[in-house]
């Protein structure tokens, strides 16, 4: 299920003096089964863009194609039900969306709203609870008795329970400890590889972007500045700094090493790559002596 943006613009409160531009003339394609990362400074329009992916916002101008569904400013809310089921959204601090009396019921909310029978929904809830690596003993507990990290997992289980084709993650690990962060990112990667889920990730975490994404979209001033592979986007540290993006740590280390007779081409993005290049150059040095 491809998602295609054609000349999409969005204005907040268009009829008021407080009107502000959310998106300017976005053209973007997210292919089925890919892993796309959206990066950019705070206020560059990432969250606004992401809310168009399942029509929580409808474009003020232009059109969005989500699978077979065309979405313009005039699309009616009732035509979007199908889209909502196919595109799951995990928001920042997703634990704030919990409201049901038990963990199980909360996970089942999504499936029930999309017409799944109650037995099937409860079955899925059990399944999802184990998918996000929570013990089944939590099933009948109140979600408000859980720890912050557990609540986040329940919320994510609630989104996965709808069995979406596309998963949109708006800083899904904000405020989690490094361990939980790592586990959660690994879970999404597993879903991407095993179930060919299309993933769209909004993140400030460049290491994650490099590690997982196949396509990177850089946003600035409510526009798409550039799209490319992580290698293309992160190859030029000067360009990154010009646009107020922090180059990944590996690139920074590589640059420091370049002052000490090391040569890197291309600049290494991952730690493994950096280690490999450094090792091979050290070996070459040894051979020459």
């Amino acid at each position, binding site marked *: 299920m491809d998602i295609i943006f054609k000349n999409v613009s969005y204005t907040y409160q268009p009829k008021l003096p407080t009107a502000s531009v959310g998106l300017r003339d976005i053209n973007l394609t997210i292919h089925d089964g890919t892993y796309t990362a959206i990066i950019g400074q705070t206020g560059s329009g990432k969250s606004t863009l992401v809310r168009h992916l399942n029509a929580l916002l409808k474009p003020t101008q232009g059109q969005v194609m989500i699978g077979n569904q065309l979405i313009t400013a005039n699309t009616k809310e009732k035509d979007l039900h199908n889209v909502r089921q196919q*595109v799951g959204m995990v928001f920042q601090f997703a634990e704030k969306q*919990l409201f049901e009396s038990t963990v199980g019921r909360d996970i089942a909310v999504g499936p029930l709203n999309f017409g799944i029978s109650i037995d099937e929904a409860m079955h899925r809830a059990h399944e999802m609870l184990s998918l996000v690596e929570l013990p089944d003993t939590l099933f009948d507990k109140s979600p408000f008795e859980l720890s912050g990290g557990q609540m986040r997992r329940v919320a994510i289980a609630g989104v996965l329970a709808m069995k979406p084709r596309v998963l949109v993650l708006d800083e899904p690990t904000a405020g989690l400890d490094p361990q939980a962060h790592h586990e959660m990112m690994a879970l999404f990667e597993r879903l991407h590889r095993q179930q060919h889920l299309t993933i769209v990730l909004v993140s400030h975490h460049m290491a994650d972007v490099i590690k997982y994404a196949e396509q990177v979209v850089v946003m600035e001033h409510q526009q798409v500045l550039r799209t490319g592979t992580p290698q293309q986007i992160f190859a030029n540290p000067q360009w990154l700094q010009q646009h107020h993006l922090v180059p990944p740590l590996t690139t920074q280390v590589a640059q420091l090493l370049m002052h000490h007779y090391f040569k890197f081409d291309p600049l290494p993005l991952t730690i493994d790559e950096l280690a490999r290049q450094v090792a091979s150059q050290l070996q070459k040095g040894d051979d020459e002596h």
Partner: protein
Amino acid sequence: MMNINQLIFGRYLPGNSFVHRMDPRAKLLLSFYFVLVVFIANDWCGYLFLALVTLFCIKLSRIKIKVFINGLKPLFVLILITILMQLFFTSGGHIYWQWGIFTLTSNGIISSVLITVRFILIIFMSTLLTLTTTPMAIADAMTALLRPLARFHLPVDEIGLMLSIALRMVPTLADEATQVMAAQRARGIDFNHGNLFKRGKALISLLIPMFVDSFNQATNLATAMEARGYQSGKPRTHYHQLHWQKTDTMALIVMLLIIPVLVFLRK
């Protein structure tokens, strides 16, 4: 749900006009005063005069009159109901038309027009107050004006603190509500359609997270305040000082002159 975005009342539009620079205490007093004065006027001349005063004040604020008129749109139904009530349920004067309990009389027409004008004038003036004054300044002004009541053991400082925290949290909670609503809509919960029961259930999915969030925020804020040395009931100094200027006194005097003019026009 969508209409909330069109509501201009309660918003603040930054600017640097005469009205923006006025002392918030003066503006608050004048707004209350104006509402009272609007009820004194009871004929055409009086209302024409008050409309001119309102237009003059709006002109002074350098905000386009269109903003105020757009702000009326969400209140259209309320105004319409008021007009219809006045039109069909006022007795006296010449009767033009009658059907059951509904009567259309000359008095009815006149009073419905007057009531509408009164309604609009009050909305315009209070909108002017909120458009030109930050919520914080309004809270400060209220606390300052309540100060004399401290004699009668009214906890003025606590009320002021609650007011300013409440005002400070309004946009934060509004953002939270938008986000929670978006998350629930993404889970297939429909806030705008369906029968009363369905909508009530949808609302629960918004209200419970909002209450839980408010409790959490309150706990965190109280802890942070105590950590920074806040103790209730102790005397405090104020960072924001209000400065009453000559122009504020002059504005008050000019506005006080409205009553004699109205009385003069009235006879």
